[in-house]
């Protein structure tokens, strides 16, 4: 059952994004930026949290999940020490993925040439 939910939620986000890309003539790069911002806002509203608990990977893998994790990082870091702490935890939940992507890309560039 979880697989079906992940399939439907993830698929729906992708299908909808594709429809907007085609219909409104948006560049795919722009769509990704919009999606990240959207995920961050939904995360702040608390909606995305419940979506992740239901759909799992179906909500985490689309880039809206990335925005959600950024907000989650900021908020979970707490603001007890005052405003100086606002951005401190921003990469708490995606820092690992981000560094991993950068390092892997770097090593990929060492090993492989573009194939065209």
């Amino acid at each position: 059952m979880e697989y079906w939910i992940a399939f439907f939620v993830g698929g729906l986000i992708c299908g909808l994004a594709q429809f907007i890309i085609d219909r409104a003539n948006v560049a795919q790069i722009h769509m990704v930026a919009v999606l990240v911002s959207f995920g961050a806002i939904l995360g702040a509203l608390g909606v995305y949290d419940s979506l992740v608990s239901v759909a799992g990977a179906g909500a985490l893998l689309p880039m809206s999940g990335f925005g959600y994790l950024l907000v989650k990082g900021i908020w979970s870091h707490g603001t007890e020490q005052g405003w100086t702490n606002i951005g401190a935890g921003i990469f708490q939940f995606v820092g690992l993925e981000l560094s991993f992507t950068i390092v892997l890309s770097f090593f990929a560039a060492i090993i492989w040439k573009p194939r065209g």
Partner: protein
Amino acid sequence: MRLAGKQTWVFDDVYLQATGTAVGPFEANGPLGEEFDVVHHDLYCGEKTWELAERRLMKEAIDVCLQKGNVTANDIDFFLAGDLLNQNVTANYTARDLPIPFLCMFGACSTSMETLAVGSALVDGGFARQVLTATSSHNATAERQFRYPTELGVQKPKSATFTVTGAGAALITRKKSRFRITSATVGRVIDAGLKNPLDMGSAMAPAAAHTIEQHFLDLGRSPADYDLIVTGDLSRVGSVIVKELLMEAGYDVTVNYNDCGLMVYRPDQATFAGGSGCACCAVVTYGHLLKEMEKGTFRNMLVVATGALLSPTMMQQKQSIPAIAHGVVIEAAGRGSRWNIG
């Protein structure tokens, strides 16, 4: 007066002495694969980077052309060349290795006919005895300069074109050969106000139609005077539009019109709307169409190379795409020295 009408040059004694073509793997697998002089089965052409590969293609096209024309680089008076890359690097670096005075030209994908027209004018005007022209493009260099990294997953629309990997060179002289260059129409920059860089066919069609019409007006001719009217890289989208535009102006080109971008690939090759790039018009004209003319399939043709003068920066600033088209008429000369098709 060699200027006929508004923007057409009429030449007395100019001949295409020899041509050379070099292409990459996609073109080699296409329907015209057999007709090119040098064929590479690797997109890198044995070089380290895409840019070096493109330079090698141009160099090889020139070498073949000189060899077929039975001349050495020292015999050439002027070299006219251009390509798609910033600062025309391929042309400039190729010229660096040649002992020939050099004029660099940029007309985007119209460069092939631009160099041919200006070269013919130089020869006909007595400013040169032999002129060498060359142009090149490479799918990966164009992709990374005008669009995105080659491995980036971006879905392209059906209207997108596929840049031809290849280079074409031509030798223009006064010495009689089988092919005479009789006239050339220099185009105006036409901007139809379109902004989609992934649909260059619709952006360039008005420029092509304008040049073809002006050509007919200047010389008092009609489409029936040509066995073939061929455009450079309007692709499946633009070729329909240009026919429609000419029809509205009262010129029916439906029977003798074709587009180089449609000839260079098979329909089942994943090339979207067809081929584009400087090399598209150059390799098809120099490699395929001239051989057909030699066989007698047609006696004369009007080659209109179309260029979209776009830049990624201007696209990001929401500017529209200006386009240009240059036409050159090539006719089979009755008797002449044997055409070296190699």
